[in-house]
């Protein structure tokens, strides 16, 4: 049996309007997500990300191609028992209170009734919802509270596969930190996380690999913990004590194989073609006694992926 999530040549077309206009949402998407991996899906609006997630969850029927999770179809009940899902649109049973909502989903997930009360309490505590808030009707919840109760239901029963659609959208900083902590916990216990998000910094922080989807295709898959091979502009700032000249900075850049773009009194911008070049440049500056206080790329790796996606993927 193939473990993990396997997507083979997935295509999906929607028909819209009275004329039946065809809109191709997915055009031959193939990828594989290993067990325990945190996998991000990014791309512009209308790229096919939500359609891809819909197919992964078995909510949409592809025109061709196949999705399997641990060798089963995604709508197989055996898969559903090990799956957690947080939708982007936090539409829940608004008339229920938070506590009852979790108990309801605990029952739907076929988790043991004997553990229901303790599991619900633990889930509420995990997402930082206090008992008073849990006793209120969901219709009175703020966006942040909805996100928390949504995350709590997605994580009920310790699912092995967790699908999160824009989990940190519209959430306050405390919620973002909570979200990152929960992803960390999921990864520690070996759960597979699929994350669809526009928040590139969050995706970059928590994912092992990220697929860039555009026009229904996977244009690139970036491995986040491997060395970056794309060129980037590096902004280097030093403390006021140092006064390197433009010529000195250009010489350090040339030594490292980088190019000095712009030099100021306390910072400079260099173009480096990869991680190794960046490391050589910084080492050269520090060795020369320049007190480097900060070195940051002007765009994140995923922002660069948006700007210049490489054709094809490594899936």
């Amino acid at each position, binding site marked *: 049996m193939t473990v993990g999530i396997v997507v083979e040549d997935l295509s999906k077309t929607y028909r819209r309007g009275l004329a039946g206009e065809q809109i191709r949402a997915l055009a031959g998407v193939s990828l594989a997500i290993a067990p325990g991996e945190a996998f991000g899906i990014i791309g512009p609006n209308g790229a096919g990300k939500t359609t891809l997630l819909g197919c992964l969850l078995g909510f*949409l029927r592809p025109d061709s191609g196949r999705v399997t999770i641990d060798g089963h179809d995604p709508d197989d009940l055996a898969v559903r028992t090990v799956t*957690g899902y947080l939708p982007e649109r936090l*539409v829940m*049973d608004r008339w229920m209170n938070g506590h009852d909502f979790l108990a309801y989903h605990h029952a739907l997930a076929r988790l043991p009734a004997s553990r229901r009360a303790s599991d619900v309490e633990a889930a509420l505590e995990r997402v930082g919802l206090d008992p008073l808030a849990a006793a209120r009707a969901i219709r009175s919840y703020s966006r942040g509270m909805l996100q928390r109760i949504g995350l709590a239901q997605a994580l009920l029963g310790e699912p092995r596969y967790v699908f999160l659609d824009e989990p940190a959208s519209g959430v306050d900083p405390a919620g973002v930190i909570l979200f990152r902590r929960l992803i960390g916990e999921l990864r520690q216990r070996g759960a597979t996380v699929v994350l669809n998000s526009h928040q590139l910094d969050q995706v970059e922080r928590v994912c092992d690999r990220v697929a860039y989807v555009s026009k229904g295709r996977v244009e690139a898959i970036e491995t986040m913990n491997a060395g970056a091979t794309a060129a980037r502009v590096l902004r280097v700032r030093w403390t006021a004590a140092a006064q390197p000249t433009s010529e000195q900075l250009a010489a350090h850049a040339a030594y490292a194989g980088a190019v000095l773009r712009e030099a100021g009194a306390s910072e400079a911008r260099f173009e480096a073609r990869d991680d190794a070049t960046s490391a050589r440049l910084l080492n050269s500056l520090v060795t020369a006694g320049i007190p480097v206080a900060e070195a940051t790329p002007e765009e994140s790796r995923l922002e660069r992926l948006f700007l210049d996606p490489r054709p094809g993927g490594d899936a």
Partner: protein
Amino acid sequence: MNGALITAFLRQRLTSPIRLAFLIIAGFFPLLFIAAAPAMGLAPLADSFPFSLVFGAGMIGQDVSSGVLQLLFARPVRRDVYVISRWFAASLAAAVVAVVQIGLAALILSARGATPEAGAVAIAWANHIASAFGATAPLLLLSALVAGLGDIGVLFLIYACASILQTVGAGLGHALISRIGQELQNFINPTIDFALIVNAFPSWYQLIAYLSTVTLSIALAIVIVNRKELSYASSS
């Protein structure tokens, strides 16, 4: 059937102020009528159709339009089980209210000196239970077809068409047109008259029409829900 789905559905219905208001109106006014005219016996309690409407309207359509189906079907819940649970829960609620209403009507009649026979009460209970489970089935089908509370609109449209056809058929003396109207009406409100069965004159046509309407409605609702695509990407 799924106990969690049935319980949650009943709780939702019983905490909806609008539904409760309609329930009180549908349940209370016939009792007033009986109290005012005890000579009519249990006749003013026609069937359970109003209760089926109160509990069943939007039983699938509201889940579709609100978007909660995505979360629900992300769980290990079979879609046919979901559909049957919805039908059963709405029917059960309608049946229980109808049984209570008949019981109260019998008490009122007794208090007014027109105590109904035990057999008549039992037949009324059986008829109303059958009516509750029957009327909810086509409503289930319409709710699977139309989002939100659109099923009520379609139901009244069918009812209006049926009435017009019957009137036109009667006016023109055209039996076929009248019959089509009558069958349309039977479709949206299938009933069984247990008095005929008790009196050894069972109407097999009525019995089969009732069972086939209920079965077909549930089966079609299952097919429709099974074919539904749930991602909002498909509608955006």
